[in-house]
């Protein structure tokens, strides 16, 4: 049973990897990379094999059907278009769904009839097209004209009839695919082929006289037949047995191909929580080391001191290594973006060219996980609000296809992620109007706001420039959540926008959050750590710049009133009033606040140890850290301290 469990884990992990690959390759396929079909085929085939082995019949069945369709694509029996890719992607989604189900319930019983039937019907409809074509091959025709009528043409079937009638003046039309009746009865998309016999030299002239034809091509049928020749037998002889045999031989070939290419990477899978545990243990070691140091100096034992310093080095190295293991490539999250962008752009009728850079940039696993949703939100915004519709872009003299780029790179000690689009940019006038409407700013203050100030308005909670919240983006909760997340991780965010030219969002993140720079402050005889990322400045506070207005304390920073919070009062620490205290100015949601402490002791890198169990419910702390001397120091969580009223 245990062994089965392990196998299952392995299966799920691997299947997910293949699913990622499939998503990617299908997009490549759509972009015209025909070889991608082989990759997808192989992935489906492998999942099918594993599913069969594990006894997941349903999944096996779905993969089998998908594989069949892919086989047809590979053999160029089916034309690739976006609708087909849609169906294939849906099938991939379904497989992912089944994998999730298997992970949770160890079962794969889920309704797949929908997706099976759409796979089948696609295959069938293409087959029908092809068989009718094949029949036509037997008919006496000299050439075939493939015609595409303009999308904005009204009464496409009439236009088609016009084309057919016009051709009839010069040659004998043998057959039309789809037939004229089919054009009338079904939703005719404007693509059709005419098989004809006779003089094809006049066709150009004839078609030149007909409006609303997007494109057409004339192919003599002899060569057409030749190109189809090698596959002809499989096309014509469609008996089930033969077909099955064909599929099987293909499977064998596939197996041969698949084995040598299977990459054995030299890695083991480790659960993140295990890494966290190791990190914590390293912290314990640091405390132990501290105690040993203390003993060594207390009893003045030279040998022990030496031994501890060696231990110290080892511990530091260990800490570095664990940190490195926690780092993952952004690729792991970015890889799902192309699919998302494609689906969304298609849904919104926009054309987007999406590029990614710096995929091997490494980031702490936790940071990356936290950033996933904000990044998705920003990309959605770029597609929904940023990129204009193809018509609009055309009218503006821009390329119909909008560009969106996401990149990650290391800049000094930070990781920088940028999302850039060449869309319409943020309409600052609209932002201003909206902010006034929503009562976020007053009309008089609006006039004095700089562009930068205006941009920062979009990060206020409850702000959205779109009048009606769309399903895609703009529920009005977005941007402020993005900003809060980035700040919580100790990063910062900047927006640059130019009307009509695009928007660029730059997110700066620390490579890890397990170790942060912190300010150690003293309050009475307690020590607290404040993440340096949230600190703006520090200043002395005495009776000259400390004011109480309407019962609320403020400190004056360069003639401005900043709300102040006395740590002593918040934590109920009793201590006599001091002559001079220190105000730590921090920023939250663009507003400044001051925390009043007794003094600052030092600034240093600290290892965050999260609060667990019932302690995790304690508000006001991000976690704790253990200093070199073994002291346990709470890390203040600025945003909950300031916003918090539950103390």
């Amino acid at each position: 049973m245990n062994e089965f469990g392990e196998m299952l884990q392995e299966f799920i992990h691997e299947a997910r990897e293949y699913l990622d690959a499939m998503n990617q390759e299908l997009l490549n396929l759509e972009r015209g990379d025909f070889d991608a079909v082989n990759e997808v085929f192989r992935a489906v085939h492998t999942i099918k094999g594993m599913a069969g082995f594990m006894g997941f019949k349903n999944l096996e069945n779905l993969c089998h059907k998908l594989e069949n369709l892919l086989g047809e694509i590979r053999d160029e029996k089916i034309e690739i278009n976006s609708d087909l890719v849609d169906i294939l992607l849906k099938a991939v989604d379904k497989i992912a769904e089944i994998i999730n189900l298997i992970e949770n319930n160890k079962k794969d019983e889920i309704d797949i009839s929908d997706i099976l039937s759409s796979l089948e019907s696609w295959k069938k409809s293409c087959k029908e097209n092809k068989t009718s074509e094949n029949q036509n091959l037997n008919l006496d025709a000299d050439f075939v004209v493939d015609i595409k009528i303009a999308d904005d043409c009204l009464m496409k079937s009439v236009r088609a009839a016009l084309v057919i009638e016009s051709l009839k003046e010069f040659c004998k039309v043998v057959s039309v695919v789809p037939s004229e009746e089919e054009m009338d009865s079904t939703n005719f998309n404007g693509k059709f082929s005419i098989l004809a016999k006779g003089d094809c030299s006049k066709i150009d002239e004839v078609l030149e006289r007909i409006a609303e034809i997007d494109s057409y091509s004339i192919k003599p049928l002899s060569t057409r037949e030749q190109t189809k020749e090698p596959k002809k037998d499989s096309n014509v002889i469609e008996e089930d047995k033969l077909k099955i045999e064909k599929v099987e031989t293909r499977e064998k070939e596939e197996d041969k191909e698949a084995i040598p290419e299977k990459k054995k990477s030299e890695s083991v899978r480790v659960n993140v929580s295990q890494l966290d545990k190791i990190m914590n243990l390293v912290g314990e070691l640091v405390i132990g080391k501290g105690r040993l140091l203390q003993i060594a100096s207390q009893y003045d034992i030279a040998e022990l001191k030496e031994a501890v310093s060696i231990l110290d080095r080892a511990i530091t190295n260990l800490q570095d290594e664990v940190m490195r293991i926690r780092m993952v490539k952004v690729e792991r999250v970015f890889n799902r973006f192309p699919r998302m962008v494609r689906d969304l752009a298609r849904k919104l009728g926009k054309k987007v060219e999406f590029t990614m850079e710096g995929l091997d940039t490494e980031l702490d696993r936790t940071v990356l996980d936290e950033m996933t949703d904000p990044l998705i939100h920003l990309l959605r915004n770029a597609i929904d609000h940023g990129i204009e519709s193809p018509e609009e872009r055309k009218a503006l003299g821009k390329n119909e296809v909008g560009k969106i780029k996401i990149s990650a790179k290391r800049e000094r000690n930070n990781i920088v992620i940028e999302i850039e689009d060449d869309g319409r940019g943020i309409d600052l006038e609209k932002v201003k109007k909206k902010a006034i409407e929503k009562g976020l700013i007053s009309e008089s203050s609006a006039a004095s706001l700089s562009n930068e100030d205006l941009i920062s308005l979009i990060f206020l909670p409850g702000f959205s420039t779109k009048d009606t919240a769309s399903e895609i983006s703009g529920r009005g909760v977005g941007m402020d959540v993005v900003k809060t997340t980035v700040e919580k991780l100790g990063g910062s965010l900047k927006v640059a926008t130019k009307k009509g030219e695009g928007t660029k969002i730059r997110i700066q993140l620390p490579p890890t959050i397990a170790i942060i720079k912190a300010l150690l402050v003293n309050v009475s005889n307690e020590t607290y750590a404040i993440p340096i990322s949230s600190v703006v400045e520090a200043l002395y506070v005495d009776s000259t710049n400390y004011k109480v207005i309407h019962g609320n304390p403020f400190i004056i920073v360069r003639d401005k009133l900043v709300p102040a919070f006395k740590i002593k009062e918040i934590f109920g620490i009793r201590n006599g009033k001091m002559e001079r205290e220190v105000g730590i100015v921090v920023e939250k949601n663009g507003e400044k606040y001051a925390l009043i402490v007794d003094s600052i002791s030092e600034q240093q890198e600290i290892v965050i140890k999260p609060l667990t169990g019932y302690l995790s419910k304690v508000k006001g702390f991000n976690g704790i850290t253990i200093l070199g001397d073994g002291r346990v120091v709470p890390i203040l969580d600025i945003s909950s301290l300031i916003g918090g009223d539950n103390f």
Partner: protein
Amino acid sequence: MVKLVRVLIVDDTAFMRKLLKNILFSAGFDIAGEAENGKQAVELYKQLKPDVVTMDIVMPEMNGIDALKEIKKIDPNAKVVMCTAVGQEQMVKTAIKLGARGYIVKPFQAAKVVEELKKVAGT
């Protein structure tokens, strides 16, 4: 010297004739004449020998389809463009089988009308 394409506009409503006239005139076509029913259209075709005819389908006295037939009898190479509305697909198809060279759809979009007539006239 560029010879303007001469168009005969056939429609029973003055409004539609005027609309087409405006569209075609500003696109550089010459208006050869106007007819308000099929019968008049056939007569005028004989007289004016226009390059292109825009032919409404539903008209009193003689409808567009019959007028098309008559005109084709007079001149098998006559270039007739049918004026149609959504829902009249089958009628237009009949007209096309009878030799109509194109169709324009009401409500008219100027660009489409001009494109169609230019294509049919061969300019």
